[in-house]
């Protein structure tokens, strides 16, 4: 979902193996709006899996995959590290706070991929050439509304600067951590 400036990214996806690309033509504003638009598009299609990234590099919310899954009433596997198919079922692993799980789902699902899922691919010349003729469809957005509004951005407080301690005297560091920083 995005404006025409997203097309080079979609072409890159085509160059590394995607068969078709679709761009939902609207400026993304927040997770609620993006998930509603993607789910509305997916509802009209037949699909086995919707693969998402871990989080966006700007807002870092990790929110869209679970929202899409709820709109479509399918399972969502957050931060999966592998994906295989066995006996017609998808088998995935994920690392949660409680441990490493191996899970399976029948039917279609949404996942967000964590590191380990796949090697990053670099497009080669043949892929880039092929991508030029693959379909990139632009569809109109439904006009979903965002659920949040950003009031302002700010920079975090600057660090005071590093205090160096002599390598021969690490005990001084321990003293500072205890008496000055009070973290131990």
């Amino acid at each position, binding site marked *: 979902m995005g404006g025409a400036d997203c097309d080079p990214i979609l072409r890159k996806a085509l160059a590394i193996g995607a068969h078709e690309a679709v761009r939902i033509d609207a400026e993304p504003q927040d997770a609620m709006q993006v998930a509603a638009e993607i789910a509305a598009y997916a509802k009209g299609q037949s699909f086995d899996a919707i693969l998402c990234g871990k989080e966006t590099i700007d807002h870092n*919310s990790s929110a869209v995959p679970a929202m899409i899954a709820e709109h479509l009433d399918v399972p969502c*596997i957050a931060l999966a590290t592998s994906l295989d198919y066995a006996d017609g079922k998808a088998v995935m692993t994920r690392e949660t706070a409680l441990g490493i*799980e191996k899970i399976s789902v029948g039917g279609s699902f949404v996942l967000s991929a964590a590191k380990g899922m796949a090697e990053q691919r670099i497009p080669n010349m043949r892929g880039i050439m092929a991508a030029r003729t693959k379909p990139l469809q632009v569809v109109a957005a439904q006009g979903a509304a965002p659920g949040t509004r950003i009031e302002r951005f700010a920079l975090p407080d600057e660090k005071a600067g590093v205090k160096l301690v002599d*390598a021969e005297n*690490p005990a001084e560091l321990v003293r500072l951590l205890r008496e000055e920083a009070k973290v131990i």
Partner: protein
Amino acid sequence: MKCIAFIQTKGGQATKASLEAAGFAAGIGEAVAVVSGDLDGDGGLGSVGIQRVLQGAGDLDDSQLGRLVSAAAEHEGASLVVCAQDHLGKSIAGRVAVRMNAGLIAGVTVAPDGDNYTRNVFSGKATAQVKGATDNLVITTTPNAIGMPAASGATASIEAFDTELGERKVDILEAASPSTGGRAPLPEAELVVSAGRGMKGPENWGLIEDLADAVGATTACSRPVSDIGWRPHHEHVGQTGIAIRPNLYIAVGISGAIQHLAGVNGSKVIVVINKDPEAPFFKAADYGIVGDAFDVVPKLTEAFKAL
């Protein structure tokens, strides 16, 4: 305002990240906690400001949990739902938001200023103040950021809560706990000792483990270290690994690349040990020692032991 705090439990006790979320909710209004499955007493919730706990069925998948939490909000007439921005929170919050037609503000780091919520953006390089644009709102709290409310010693009452949850669609085939060697799990750890490629090889990690033991810290590592297999993946911190916010982060032989800093720049105090005085990590550090880790770390370990 009435709010719902969704609580993850481990061995019947609320996780630390969930207690922080509950305390955050209790600071905003009358907060009712929702748990799935067994609780040991009140799971520690009364002490952080929760008076009532709604206890739903156990062994639910993410979709069923979403239903449980949104049904509880409806039952209580709550317009705000809070949970931790941890693994489970990332699976549930979006679902609850869709069910309640609520905006979602993820990863809030401080108590709100009126209806303005502050969260980190661009991996901690900036903050944003965000408002809800809907009647209902879902908030997730960044672990180790809000801080734990002072324990009051109060006890919450527990009420069974039954609602239609639909069928389970996700089957767990195997589950294994990561071995943390008795140390706090990394996302919850308040003290962390982390090491990078400067340690030369896995055979030298004994030095790091000894320092971590002396400090009472959990161990972490940079990405290349887990990529090469010197350390397990669950220790990898940074943009592509876990983001942590301990009180103390000691980085040994890590250069301080921006993708590494993205996962650790929320730490309250950063100590860098690096033999290169130009290592970029020193710019993000509070304290530093320029020196060879193989000399400095054993001495530092002794100094901690002498405490």
